[in-house]
């Protein structure tokens, strides 16, 4: 049985841990609010982008001169997998569930005989995939020093992806990130980036009252301009959802850690009191039996 001093130290250390997790939970809660606001502020742009793209591409679908970003290269031999995770851990299963989904997908693709290339965004995703597929990672991004993810970061990534695409490095790109549903639920999601997948339900777009859009310059030109931009927007949205999800997951993970620490302290306290009592009893017995022997 542990000595009283050991128990006391143990209790003190669990208490210190509890203080840390409690503080982390509160920080995550504050950051979550900010991340949610950022995600909401970005929504109008993404919505309008979806709508415009749906309008344009319904007209373009099936035309031979449709841009490759929309129609694809006609092959699907080489896949690019973009895995977006958080930079930091201690947020429950958040990072590992994204990595798991990506890994299943990669394994399936390899099983089908396809070539896979990986771009990781966020340190944890890179760490998780490096062990199994380290040779397939072509690029990694980290945002450890950045307080608030802006459009700039999304643009950097999308530019790199586009460069790879234009160089013919891959045929299909899929983005893995976590969809933020609410604080306790984040769903790891796969989204096809190239060829562009059309948002569901956006079909048809706005009713123009019988009129037809006038395009300036022509449709193909606009679409050429729009599709790369749409890629940045999709990535930006994914990054923002990820940030919100990360803090949501961190908040609930830290909440349960704090509660666990509380339970542990309670249990340790009981053990401590019992062994203290046992010691007192033992000493008393020794004194009494000593006195009786005289």
């Amino acid at each position: 049985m542990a000595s009283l001093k050991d128990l006391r130290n143990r209790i003190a250390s669990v208490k210190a841990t509890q203080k840390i997790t409690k503080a982390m939970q509160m920080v995550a809660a504050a950051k979550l609010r900010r991340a949610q606001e950022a995600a909401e502020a970005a929504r109008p742009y993404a919505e309008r982008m979806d709508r415009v793209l749906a309008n344009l591409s319904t007209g373009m679908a099936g035309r031979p001169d449709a841009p490759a970003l929309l129609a694809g290269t006609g092959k699907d031999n080489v896949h690019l997998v973009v895995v977006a995770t958080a930079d930091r851990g201690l947020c429950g299963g958040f990072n590992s569930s994204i990595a798991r989904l990506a890994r299943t997908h990669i394994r399936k693709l390899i099983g089908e005989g396809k070539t896979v290339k990986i771009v990781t965004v966020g340190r944890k995703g890179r760490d998780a995939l490096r062990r199994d597929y380290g040779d397939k990672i072509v690029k990694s991004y980290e945002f450890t020093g950045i307080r608030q993810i802006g459009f700039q970061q999304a643009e950097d990534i999308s530019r790199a992806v586009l460069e790879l695409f234009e160089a013919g490095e891959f045929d299909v790109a899929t983005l893995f990130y976590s969809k933020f549903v609410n604080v306790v639920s984040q769903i790891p999601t796969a989204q096809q980036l190239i060829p562009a997948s059309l948002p569901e339900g956006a079909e048809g777009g706005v009713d123009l009252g019988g009129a037809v859009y006038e395009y300036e310059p022509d449709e193909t030109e606009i679409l050429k301009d729009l599709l790369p931009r749409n890629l940045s927007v999709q990535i930006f949205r994914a990054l923002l959802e990820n940030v919100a999800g990360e803090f949501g997951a961190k908040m609930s993970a830290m909440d349960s850690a704090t509660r666990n620490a509380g339970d542990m302290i309670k249990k340790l306290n009981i053990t401590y009191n019992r062994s203290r009592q046992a010691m007192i009893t033992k000493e008393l017995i020794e004194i009494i039996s000593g006195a009786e022997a005289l």
Partner: protein
Amino acid sequence: MAEKLQFDLVSPERLLFSGEVDMVVVPGAEGDMGIMAGHAPVMSTLRPGIVNVDAAGKPQERIFVRGGFAEVTPKGLTVLAEYSVPLAELDAAALDREISNAQEDVGDARTDAKRQAAQEKLDHLKQLRQVL
């Protein structure tokens, strides 16, 4: 000028302007367009430049936009801009200082990636300076 035009200006990070106005002049890729209520549906890409917003009884608002496009529907005008900043927030002297800083950055950059980033920043600042 009885009819009003619903005008929204959005950037990826936030909604910058939303309201009813009389006329908006948009720097389209093939020339400036003045858009008023009841304009035919148009979709156009933008070149870097100034969006002029006219609303009765209010001073004209001038907003710098870069990269993006404008969409006119019977409901109104939506400008999606990658970057935008109200001209009132810009200051020519401060901008000049930043331009010279950026120029130094381009000269100092060691790696290609850094030089490219610095060059982009410089071009961007120069565009801003031009419209002032």
